[in-house]
């Protein structure tokens, strides 16, 4: 067994920690550092609940060794907005794109990559992009609705010259919308 000192930038905060070779990124984030947005679901790289953004790519953090991520910038669903909800989170909230919410942090991370690369995806493209994110309670219809709504708003914001993600929001947060 070997241990390794690694550095990660998580949601903009520099973190240094010592991990075993076998420590998975999701456990380093959750158990060592306290970033609990990525959830542990299937643990075998299929369900996508653990998805986070690593250097711009949606990645299943249960299938990456923490030591592999040394030096990376990691953004979890909780780091998408500086304050309140970002437009994608808000659309999931309004369109009922979640029920129990367990899969949601992963859905959000993958959706971020999709809308960065394709601001106007078809419903088929949305389903294809989210293939690696499994929901077992809401059903996918309202999730696809949420991504469409988020895409529309982000395009509108882009046309207005506003930042497309982060702290911009039209309304004050609704009670219970943040946790």
């Amino acid at each position, binding site marked *: 067994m070997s241990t*390794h000192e690694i550095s990660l930038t998580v949601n903009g905060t520099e973190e240094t920690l010592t991990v075993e070779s076998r420590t998975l990124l999701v456990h380093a984030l959750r158990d060592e550092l306290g970033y609990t947005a990525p959830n542990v679901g299937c*643990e075998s*790289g299929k369900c*996508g609940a653990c998805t986070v953004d690593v250097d711009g*790519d949606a990645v299943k953090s249960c299938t*990456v*060794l923490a030591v592999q991520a040394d030096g990376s910038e990691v953004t979890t669903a909780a780091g998408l907005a500086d304050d309140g909800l970002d437009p994608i989170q808000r659309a999931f909230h309004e369109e009922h794109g979640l029920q129990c919410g367990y899969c949601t942090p992963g859905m959000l991370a993958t959706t971020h990559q999709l809308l960065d690369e394709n601001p106007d995806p078809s419903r088929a493209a949305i389903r294809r992009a989210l293939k690696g994110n499994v929901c077992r309670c809401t059903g996918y219809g309202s999730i696809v609705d949420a991504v469409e709504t988020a895409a529309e708003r982000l395009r509108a914001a882009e046309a207005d010259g506003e930042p497309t993600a982060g702290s911009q929001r039209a309304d004050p947060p609704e009670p219970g919308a943040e946790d």
Partner: protein
Amino acid sequence: MFPAEFDYERAESVGEALGLLAEYADADVAILAGGHSLVPAMKTEGRAPDVVVDLDVPALEAVNALDDRTVVGALTTYATLVDSGAVRSTVPLVAEAASEVGDTQIRNRGTIGGNLAEAHPGADLPAAALATDATILLRNRDGKREVPATDFFRGDGETAVERGELLTGVRVPHADDAGFAYAKKTHPATGYAMVGVAAVVETDGGAGGDVSDGDDPGTVSSARVAATGAVDRAVRLPSVEDALVGQSLDSAAVDAAAGEARGDIDADRLRSDAYASGEFRGELLETYVARALETAAERVAGDAPTA
């Protein structure tokens, strides 16, 4: 679920990786590329290497498109294969097969080298490597070795890679005017192919178009058709290929060639598992050979109304 304990070594060059393979010659060493097969296997399938050598070698992430061939570095991710203009324009079958791998997150991390070296019987890239007539590039401390894809896949998880060797890349010849396609019946949970068929078909002229509409795509001068998922490794289908050559690439020829597919594989070699019987995979094979050939015919240079 956690992997068993192991020692982790990071290699930042091919030389370093080969040095580590030599240093740990007596140990059970696993080479880590994207890790999207290895890490799950270490968590759930009892894979317990003593040492993991992580390839962190930017030189192996390069795509080099030359006049008549494209060399793809082993660490090129599926996502890069799908997005790369060079790959899409010079070896589009590779991009198409890569687009069918797993899901968004897996394509972001998984690599062509890992896919070929793992040699999963339902993996997508081995079929593309066979149909494009690719060559697998290997290195050891004594030098380089090249293995044609047709001689590379030896069984479920078994390849021509020898101890101390590293798969560094794939050389894919161009087939500029050929029609191509990868048609896949995806297992909905695993993402692997229950059956996948890759085809590259060249013709001597013809107008192209939809074979089912009676358009003339020309006479087949060469065909390479390969299947994954059907047996324990990706295989070429020579009877299908032979049935195509010299024929006008119309729907009758496609159906006739597809009808040869099961003749290339002994029935008892067909994979049978909890997901599908061998008999069902045999049925899928014929259907997906036909689908791949239909799409390839539509894309033959000349050409497809949709192109």
